[in-house]
């Protein structure tokens, strides 16, 4: 009787776990099956040509390059903010300092703020500053989205680090600033993981850049020009009634998924080098 109940429960759990694995395979499978036939060298090396949105010649190089520009800028800003911040709350503030608690808590909240809200806020900010939809606008807004991710993930990695090395450095008479320069080497894998996670999240997000980065068929030449992005290019192409354009949306989706997979595996590689398994 007890045994039967136990077994039924077990079956349910295994089915649930299989469904989740199945969903991942289903999603990846769908994207690959639909994307591969439409994928071509032109897709990743050419800009949209004349009549591209009616199904003629061209590729999505504009979106690929635009996305890389946006994410590179956003990650740079995000590093400049989160790196010193994490060092400060972990090594400068005393253990269990209320300020560190408040900073962590506000970043936890920022982590949960939806990207569309960042998009709307970024848009309001740009109107306030008199900016137009541009590469700079996209970079700033995406930086807002990914900084909490980078900061919290790097913070967790830093908290796990044993305190022996920092303590012994301090007892040798280093200033904290000098100590941090030394222990950065130990913290590197955690830092890289955090940056990769943030990159993956930022490069795939559409709602932030929708208002702020604009869209263009050309490569952005300066920070004040609009920039196309991969997620938006997928979204716009999928909305087209022309079958060829829709197929290109699938191919673009495949390109984006591929980028994300690489980032995800890289992050996993670095974090497995660093810490024990999280699951």
């Amino acid at each position, binding site marked *: 009787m007890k045994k039967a109940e*136990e077994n039924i429960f077990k079956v349910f759990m295994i089915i649930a776990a299989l469904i989740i694995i199945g969903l991942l395979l289903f999603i990846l499978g769908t994207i690959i099956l639909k994307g591969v036939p439409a994928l071509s060298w032109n897709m990743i090396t050419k800009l949209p040509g004349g009549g591209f949105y009616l199904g003629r010649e061209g590729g999505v190089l504009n979106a690929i390059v635009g996305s890389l520009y946006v994410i590179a800028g956003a990650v740079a800003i995000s590093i400049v903010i989160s790196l010193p911040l994490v060092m400060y709350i972990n090594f400068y503030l005393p253990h269990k300092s209320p300020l560190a608690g408040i900073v962590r808590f506000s970043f936890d909240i920022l982590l949960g703020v*939806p990207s569309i*809200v960042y998009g*709307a806020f970024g848009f309001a900010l740009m109107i306030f500053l008199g900016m137009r939809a541009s590469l700079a606008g996209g970079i700033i807004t995406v930086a807002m989205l990914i900084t909490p991710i980078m900061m919290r993930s790097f913070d967790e990695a830093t908290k796990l680090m044993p305190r022996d090395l920092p303590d012994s450095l301090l007892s040798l008479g280093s200033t904290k600033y000098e100590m941090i320069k030394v222990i950065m080497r130990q913290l590197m894998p955690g830092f890289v993981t955090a940056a990769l996670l943030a990159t993956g999240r930022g490069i795939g997000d559409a709602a932030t850049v929708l208002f702020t980065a604009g869209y263009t068929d050309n490569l952005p030449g300066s920070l004040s020009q609009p920039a196309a992005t991969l997620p938006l290019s997928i979204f716009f192409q999928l909305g087209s009634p022309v079958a060829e354009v829709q197929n290109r949306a699938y191919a673009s989706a495949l390109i984006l998924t591929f980028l994300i997979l690489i980032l*995800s595996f890289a992050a996993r590689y670095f974090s497995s080098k660093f810490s024990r398994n999280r699951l």
Partner: protein
Amino acid sequence: MHRLRSIKERSARWFMRIIAYCSILFLIIIGIALFVKAFPAIKNNGLWELLTSARWRPSGGKFGFLPFIISTLYVSAIAIAIALPLSLLTAIYLNSYASKGIRRFFAPVIDLLSGIPPVIYGVWGTITIVPFIANYIAPHFSGQSSGYSVMAGGIVLAVMIIPLLVGLLVEIFNSIPKEMTDASFSLGATKLQTVKRVILRRSLPGIVAVTVLSVSRAFGETMAVLMVCGNSTLMPHSLLDACYPIPALIANNYGEMLSIPGYESALMLAAFLLFVIVFLFNGISRLTLNHLEKRFHF
């Protein structure tokens, strides 16, 4: 030399301190900025009117958010109803039943699922879920549905919050001390009895907190839902009707919002509402989780 060291040290400290305070301020600034932008809409129409009216005619200055609020609640409820049982079962499995090998295999699965961008979920939903609903599910009921519906939005959203739920739930279950489950086993309890009477019982506050957290994630999810839910400004009456959650509304109308008076402010109000709800939900559940973490680690 000594002087230089201490100047470096002090300026680094100040730089860091400023960033720390700014980052806390940032949260407040977002709230205030959105509120300021939303204020004209509240002043012109009244907050109560905005929240309870179902009339949406931007060109006529009518901004009734009710259909969008209902859509958001509807889609999120379905997502949780699907995702929570699946995630709970999986998390219990990973915590108490699965072998080390399976656990190690599952970690990247969850990572990948949470890494897939919303727009990809949207593409997947449009290719598979939407036609499935239109061709196989709708005919059994009312008959006519394009497939772009509450149900499609709920399913896609469920898949998107599963990795979040599983990850957090496993963490909560793992924080239960082994002595406690051992105590139950040594009294002759079976695994299932231990799960039901000790693990779930102990984790209940955490499970609630995590659920609230994923509800707020569901509320804010934009792109994927936008792509599969049909975006009709009418009130949804069944699972197969099209709907229009708040984030999708904001995203879809950015183009025209500057050309119609009052439109921008109304949409900013929508963003402000999302922000406030997410702030409260996240705040409460994070505080609960932090509290649990402190109490459980000894």
